[in-house]
């Protein structure tokens, strides 16, 4: 079948090329030096920053997305609010890259609408250490696709929380927080964990937004890899392959951590 031929040519061969290339020397022969180099400056710092940005946006986006999704879906919220939020999330989760970076420059950049507004009202964000073209700025922009993604992914699980459970808990005298602690959160937990992992991977893989926002100055792994190709510093392609390999390892580790957590979280359901 052509499908399998295509998969081999454009998926497995490139994957194999990275696996092999990461362990090849600059001229010839096998070596661990590329991979070993990843543990040194500036590569290790890039991994740290990448992981930090991904963790922060996955957690903040996950928690805030959960609250927004719950607020939009719960009983008592008008139906049109619900459909506006779910439709908009479907669109905004697809929204990223260069246009997103520009939208944040127009909002919170040095001449951005919000920056100017705050400055005119006696509060200068840059005087308080805020810089859009930095790690914080990248995190702020990433949330623009992380939040809607969380809303999209978690909505079915929230819809699965039955109203009867709340009523039953209330009838038995449970307070709001008791319902959440003993019923709501445990039921949602497997979905929340899965969604958080998805958000982590989503931010970890992102390139265009950070590239455009910081003009390629924020030190994250995809930008470091990109610099090897778009610049003229391609003295050792195997180093870029080793970095790509390293990204893969990080994602694999996340999956390995996720599986037992997921199993533990879903244990009550059996």
């Amino acid at each position: 079948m052509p499908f399998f031929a295509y998969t081999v040519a454009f998926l497995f061969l490139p994957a194999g090329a990275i696996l092999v290339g990461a362990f090849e020397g600059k001229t010839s022969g096998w070596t661990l030096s590329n991979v070993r180099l990843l543990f040194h400056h500036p590569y290790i710092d890039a991994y740290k920053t990448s992981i930090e940005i991904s963790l922060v946006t996955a957690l903040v986006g996950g928690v805030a997305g959960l609250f927004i999704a719950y607020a939009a879906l719960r009983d008592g919220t008008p139906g049109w609010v619900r459909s506006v939020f779910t439709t908009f999330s479907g669109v905004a989760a697809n929204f990223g890259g260069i246009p997103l970076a520009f939208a944040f420059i127009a909002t919170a950049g040095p001449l951005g609408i919000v920056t100017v507004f705050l400055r005119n009202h006696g509060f200068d964000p840059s005087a308080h250490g805020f810089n859009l073209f930095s790690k914080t700025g990248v995190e702020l922009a990433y949330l623009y696709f992380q939040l809607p993604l969380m809303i999209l992914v978690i909505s079915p699980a929230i819809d699965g929380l039955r109203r009867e459970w709340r009523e039953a808990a209330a009838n038995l005298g449970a307070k709001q927080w008791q319902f959440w602690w003993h019923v709501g959160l445990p039921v949602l937990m497997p979905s929340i964990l899965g969604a958080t992992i998805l958000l982590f991977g989503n931010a970890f893989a992102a390139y265009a937004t950070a590239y455009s926002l910081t003009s390629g100055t924020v030190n994250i792994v995809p930008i470091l890899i990109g610099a090897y190709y778009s610049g003229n510093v391609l003295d050792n392609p195997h180093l870029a392959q080793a970095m790509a390999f390293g990204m893969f390892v990080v994602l694999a580790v996340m999956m390995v951590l996720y599986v037992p957590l997921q199993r533990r979280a879903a244990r009550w359901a059996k």
Partner: protein
Amino acid sequence: MSLSAVVWLVLGAAYFVIPLVATFLFSLKSNQTGKCCTAANYGWVIHNGGFWHSVKISFLLALETIVISLLIFVPTIYWVHLKLPRLRPVIAFLALIPFVVPPIVMVVGLLQVFKSSPHWFYAQPWGFLSAAYVILAFPYMFFSLDAGFRAIDVHTLTEASQSLGARWTTTLVKVILPNIRSAALAASFLTLAIVMGEFTIANLSAFHTFPIFIQLVNETQGFPAAALTLLSFGITWAAMLALLVVGRKRGARSAVVAGAR
């Protein structure tokens, strides 16, 4: 509605809406004086040859990607549903891989494998880039089409068609295809949105697509860039809304997560 729900919804809405409003306000400012309000930035975009050129490249790339993907996936999924249902999890797994692998990793591998391939393939967006985009489209194509095929009775339709003497190509084109039209359309709109916004692979393999043009303007012309950004939003949104309209009945929304970032 409780107070906390209102607070969360207002905060969420503000975070989503303010950047769009800010971009809109920027797009109305004059590039010379920085003052409001003028439509000159939109004029600048529309009269810019580079804009039309790059949009054309990206749009043709999207069409090529859609056609190749449909040619690969429709017969494959049809065959799997008809004859080899046990193979379905394998195909699903393979189609999901591009969803997990970051595009930046993908392009490093692709560049390595195809760097010495013929010029007509490697140096042309219609070769290298569309080949990569077909891979990016894998998950969306598979899940949309698979849902479409599951909603129809492949066996009965095929048997009816064949008992009337149709060859299997006729069956596929004249009987099956019209029945999965909305799924195919949904997959196509998703692919369109992805290709029109894809930056990573195009940038690393140095092709001048629409997102590359936007980035170039971003770096040089502040206010026209705002107009361009809004136009680009418009394209993505039109594709996504079209998707929501065609996909309403078949649950195509499950796969609405694309890779422009």
